[in-house]
């Protein structure tokens, strides 16, 4: 059951940090639903949607950050959680997500998560539905990217190209100086 829940959570989440953040927001929401309210109703059911939406906003903070995602999970998703199993399930889900080794992508400046969604989809298509990425900023690479996978690094950045073609570049520049 936990695996399915993790798959549902990761269906539209490609970045590991974001996945964990969404998981926390989900947990907060479900705990509120289970323990704070006597009439626990799944979001999106009847006239209680707007009220639940407001509750969600209260719980998760920013109105748009995770609200849309939490809503997109659907009412069936929330039926899986009870007071008895909620903590266990979330612990298992968190461990499962943390266990996934992400592909670290070094970029020269911050890329919004929306722009990284197609990248995540591409990677999921090639390497599996639970493939996650992690982005890190390194202005030193100038342009392009460097990838780190299972402790191994592959540099496809401009910096690496300059280093590889160092002699050629120097020769070219020195020829200009001579002329």
């Amino acid at each position: 059951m936990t695996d399915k829940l993790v798959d549902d959570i990761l269906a539209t989440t490609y970045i590991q940090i974001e996945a964990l953040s969404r998981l926390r927001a989900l947990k907060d929401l479900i705990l509120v639903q289970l323990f704070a309210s006597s009439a626990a109703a799944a979001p999106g059911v009847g006239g209680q949607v707007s009220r639940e939406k407001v509750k969600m906003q209260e719980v998760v903070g920013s109105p748009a950050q995770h609200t849309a995602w939490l809503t997109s999970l659907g009412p069936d998703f929330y039926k899986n959680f009870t007071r008895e199993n909620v903590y266990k399930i979330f612990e298992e889900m968190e461990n499962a997500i943390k266990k996934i080794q992400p592909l670290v992508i070094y970029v020269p400046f911050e890329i919004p998560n929306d722009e990284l969604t197609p990248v995540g989809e591409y990677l999921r298509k090639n390497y599996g539905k639970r493939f996650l990425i992690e982005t890190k900023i390194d202005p030193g690479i100038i342009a392009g990217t460097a990838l780190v996978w299972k402790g191994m690094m592959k540099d496809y950045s401009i910096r690496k190209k300059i280093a590889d073609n160092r002699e050629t570049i120097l020769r070219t520049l020195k020829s200009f100086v001579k002329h």
Partner: protein
Amino acid sequence: MLNTMPELIQFTIILTVTFAAATVLLAYLYIQESQKRQKLERLSPNTALKDAQQKGQNLIHQALKKAQAIIGKAELEGIEVVAESKLSTKKFEEKYGKELEEEITKAAQAFAKYLDDLRTQGEQTQLLNQEYSKQKINEIFEKFEQNLADFLTQTEQKSVSAIDLELKATRQLIDTYKTQQLSLIDENIIAMLEKTLSLVLVNKISLKDEVDLVYEALEKAKAEKFIS
């Protein structure tokens, strides 16, 4: 002459002893006589005394005569001895004088010849020594020149090789320094290039271009089977 000296001394001693004996005898007699006279004068003052005096004077007179005779005899004997000694000396001088002179002349000639021989031998030895010294000095000088030449040659070789080594080391140092400086310059050039690119591309490269570059990298990684 040298042999008459002891005879003269002997004669003088005899004469002296004789005079001394005579003098002692006279003195003894005089003393005896005076004692007698005193005795006589004490015992009988008149005729006995005169007799005694007379006797005494006679005795003295006789003693004096005898003493003079002894002295005269001694003088004569002394004169004889002196004459004899002079004569014998003269004979001896006559006999051995010539022989002595001849011997002295011979000895002088032999000594002069010996001195001449010695001088000749000395001159020859001196000449030989001079020749030998010259030869030795020449040998020493030749050896010294040879050693000096060898030493100078060795020193020159060592100096040259030491200078060569120093030059080599210095050239190597210069080359190393040049290489280091050139590589530093190259590093600086690359660093400047990277800095320039980072400043320029930040403004020039768009988000879409960067994402495209990410796709390109992922494609390459897939081709290289980097991600499994």
